[in-house]
Every structure is written in structure tokens, then in C-alpha cells.
């Protein structure tokens, strides 16, 4: 037996599992979204998906984009402070704190936020106790704001961790030179450090984008009301109506949204490579 044959034999069981539990269902979702029960091609499931859920499609894209943007800003602030911070006490505290949500499951994060952001949750209660808020003006954040807050809370440590690692590995001399020439730390971060770690930041954000598109527990638990995210709509089409065709059309729409993020990333990578 040649080495190649042995290698193929060793790798086949794993590939079979991926083929059976990923490739086959993926192919099935594509076929089911574009065909009638009799097998003829149709776009009627997409028409139905757009008719019923166009609001939720827009909602999902806005939620995920906003969450990614806020996650990026928070991660840049944290990673920037960790790398360029001069106050050892601040850097030490931040370092000890920021990673906490990293290994917390999404469903636990959702349960935390479900109580924390409620009308009478700990957040509003603390604001009222501190005199920052009038008890009557307390409102529940358990809607789109709650979903975004949960996503940002959960994903920021991941992006910040990768970004801090990348920032720590860039050449300190350019940053020191910038500081010596009188640039503020913010300016050094934005104009000297960030451009060098952009690829890392974008990879982390694309991964976060797909993750947020896949999470079912957070939109179900944090915001029960309409509008909601496509993951919840898909679960509803299946559980309430057994309507695989429309659910799969919605599924194809989520593939396209995530492909959009990946293409934007690749396009940027290519234009960068083309540049001198």
C-alpha cells in the first residue's frame, strides 16, 4: 500500500462525517430552497421568505453589522490600552478583567442579559440607586438593543485578544518614534499601529459576523418580540409549520449574507496585495 492510499484511508472516516452532516444537508438546503415538491425549479420560496420576513432580513443585517462595528471599537479601545497604556494600574486591571466573557457560552450570556437589561434588572436599579435615572423612566432593553449588547459583550474579548496579540508583535520602534515626535497615544494607535494589524482585526470580525448570524439562543431569549433574527424565523418555520422550503430559502439568504462578509474581506485582501 502506498503512502497516499494509507493517508486517504486514515482521513476518510472524518471526511465522511463532515460530508454526511455538513455537505449533504448544505446541498439539501440549496435544492430545497429552489425546487417545488415535484422537483421543478422555482423562486416562490424566496418570494414567500421576502414577503414574510423582509423586515427581519434587514433587521438581522443591521444587528450583525452594528454589533461588529461596536465590537471592533471596544476591542480597539481595549487592545490599544493594553499595548500603549502607560498607567500600569489601568493596564493590569484591564488585563485581568477583559477576557471574562470569552469562554462563557452564548446561552449563559443570554440568560445574564435577560435579567440584567430588564426593566427592573440590575442595570436600571443601579442607575436609579446612583441617582442617574428616575425610576419612572426606566425602560427594558430586551429588544434589538439587548441582542446587540449581548453580542458585543460576548465577542469583544475574542476580537480584543487577537488584536492585542497582533499589536504586541508589531515593531515598537515605529510607535516609539511616533510618540517621540509628539503624536498622542490615540494618534499613534489609529495612524501607526492599527493599519499594521488590520488583517487580524478583519479576520476576527468576519469570524464574529458568521458566529452572530448562527446564534439562536440570544435572539430567542433576549428579545422575544418582532422583529427578530433569521435564525429564530427558521426555527419557527420548522417547529410551527414544518415548512422546510421557506426555512431553507431563509437559510440560503443567511449563507449569502455571510458570503457577503467573506467577499468584502477577500476583496480588501486582494486590493492590498495589488498595491505596491
Amino acid at each position, binding site marked *: 500500500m502506498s503512502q497516499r492510499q494509507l493517508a486517504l484511508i486514515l482521513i476518510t472516516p472524518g471526511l465522511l462525517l463532515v460530508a454526511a452532516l455538513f455537505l449533504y*444537508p448544505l446541498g439539501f438546503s440549496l435544492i430545497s430552497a429552489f425546487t417545488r415538491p415535484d422537483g421543478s425549479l422555482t423562486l416562490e420560496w424566496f418570494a414567500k421568505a421576502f414577503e414574510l420576513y423582509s423586515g427581519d432580513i434587514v433587521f438581522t443585517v443591521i444587528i450583525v453589522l452594528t454589533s461588529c462595528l461596536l465590537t471592533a471599537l471596544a476591542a480597539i479601545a481595549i487592545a490599544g490600552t493594553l499595548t500603549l497604556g502607560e498607567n500600569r494600574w489601568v493596564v493590569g486591571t484591564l488585563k485581568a478583567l477583559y477576557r471574562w466573557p470569552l469562554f462563557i457560552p452564548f446561552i449563559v450570556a443570554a440568560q445574564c442579559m435577560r435579567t440584567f437589561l430588564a426593566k427592573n434588572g*440590575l442595570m436600571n436599579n*443601579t442607575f436609579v440607586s446612583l441617582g442617574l435615572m428616575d425610576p419612572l423612566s426606566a425602560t427594558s432593553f430586551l429588544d434589538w438593543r439587548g441582542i446587540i449588547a449581548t453580542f458585543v459583550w460576548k465577542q469583544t474579548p475574542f476580537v480584543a485578544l487577537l488584536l492585542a496579540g497582533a499589536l504586541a508583535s508589531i515593531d515598537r520602534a515605529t510607535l516609539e518614534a511616533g510618540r517621540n515626535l509628539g503624536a498622542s497615544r490615540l494618534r499613534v494607535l489609529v495612524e501607526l499601529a492599527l493599519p499594521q494589524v488590520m488583517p487580524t482585526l478583519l479576520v476576527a470580525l468576519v469570524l464574529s459576523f458568521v458566529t452572530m448570524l448562527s446564534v439562536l439562543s440570544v435572539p430567542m431569549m433576549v428579545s422575544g418580540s418582532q422583529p427578530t433574527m433569521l435564525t429564530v424565523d427558521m426555527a419557527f418555520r420548522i417547529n410551527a409549520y414544518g415548512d422546510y422550503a421557506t426555512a431553507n430559502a431563509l437559510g440560503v439568504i443567511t449563507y449569502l449574507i455571510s458570503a457577503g462578509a467573506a467577499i468584502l474581506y477577500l476583496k480588501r485582501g486582494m486590493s492590498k496585495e495589488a498595491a505596491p
Partner: protein
Amino acid sequence: MIRLVSTARAALAAAVLTAFAFVLSGPLANLALWSVAERWYTPYKLPVTYGTRYWEQVFRPTGDAMASLGTSVWIAVLTVIVALALSIPAGYALARLKLPVRALFMVMFLLPQAFPSVAIYINVARVFYQIGINGTVFAVVLVHAAHGLVYSVWIAAAAFAAVDKDLELAARNIGASPLRTFATVTLPLAAPGIIASGIFVFLESLDEFTGTFFVGVPQVTTLPLLLYNAAMGGNYQVASITALILLVPSVLFMLFIERFLRADVLAKVGA
């Protein structure tokens, strides 16, 4: 004047840090409060009566939580076994053997992570339903293992690639068969990495919700599903206690990583 500015800056830094700490720990503090709140209703800002009544209810041997914990751990253990049984040979082949279109195979194992998963899971559930295994532990283990293969295959391949080839050659030179060389030299040296990937797969399985939600219900109830049902049923105490139980392995893992990192950093001091 300079002193005033630096005091103001320090105060600002302290305020920002305090706000950050509140945002970070507030949700967790709220969770902890709910787990020991026997009665808590508006307009009270803190629980009216504290107690461990719900903990007793959850940890009662006949309680749902203990059964769900058992199911969760059993599924996670089986998932690790399946994932490692598939990824150790695959990782070895990817790292050590001549393989046509190697990059394509690596990407194949990565793909399940690169797509939004809900649309995949609903179709897996449909197939499982047709062949009559929906709602079984076996079905849930398969779904978790497919998800875990990304980590286990990639980490196993890296672990095997890191094993010094000269040691394998030395074993072969003194007459060991290829299989014996693998069992006594390559595998033990790659073991730390493979164990790390196993821990990762275990934790992923323990925390997994979406796949179990479609493939396991209503017969298989893992801890995340129990948490979901309790939360949606309005039982915040049971939901919070379940969430805290789910946090334990995650926190242990984080402390482990932290120690590991610290040891790593310390080793470099003075080197």
C-alpha cells in the same frame, strides 16, 4: 496646573475602568443574585429573601438538573471519543503523509464553522427524523462531533507536525515497526496537543445549544436546553443556577489557560 491635569486624567481613567468593570461583571452579578433569590419582585432593587431553596431543588437527585448534567457530560464524553477517533488518524495523515489536495481536505474540516449553522441543523434533523434517530443521544453526539472536528483535526495535525521526525527515524532504525513507532513515539509526544483539543471539544459539546435544540428535543435534555426551558418558563432561579453550573467548566478552563500562559511568560523571564 500639571498636577491638576494629571489628577483629572487619573480620575477619568478610574471612571472609565469602573464603568467597564460594571458592564463586564454586572450581568454575571445579576445571575449570581438570581441564583440565591427566593423572592424578588418589583419595586425591590435587591432580592427580598435570600436562600438556597432552589439549589436544593436543582441538586435533588431526582431533579431535572442532575439528570441533564448527566446527559450533558455523557454526550460530551462520547463526542470527545468520536472526534478523537476520527481526528487522530486524519491529523496524522494531514501532518505526516503525502496527501493529494491536502489544502482542500483541511478546508473541508473548516467548512462547518464557516457557514451559519441553523440552516444546516434543520436539514440534519430532517434526515435524522427520516432514519429514525432524531431525539437520541447518538444523533446529538454525531452533530456535536461534526462540529468539534474542526478543532480536533486542526489541532491534531499541528500536534503531529510538531513531533520531531528524527525521533521517529531513530525508532525505525532500531527496528520498530511503523505502527509501534506511532504508538510509542509519535502519539505520546503529540498527546498534550491532542488532549488540549479533546478538552476543547468537550467544552464545545457541553455548551452547544442550537444543534441539540433541533436534533435532540424533546427526548434529550442537556443543561443548555434545561436552561433555555427554565428561562422561557419564567423560572429565573433554576435558569440562573443552571447557567452557573455551565460556567464552572468554562472558568476552570480559563484559569487553566491563565496558569499555562503565566508559566509560559515566567519561563521567558531572564532567558
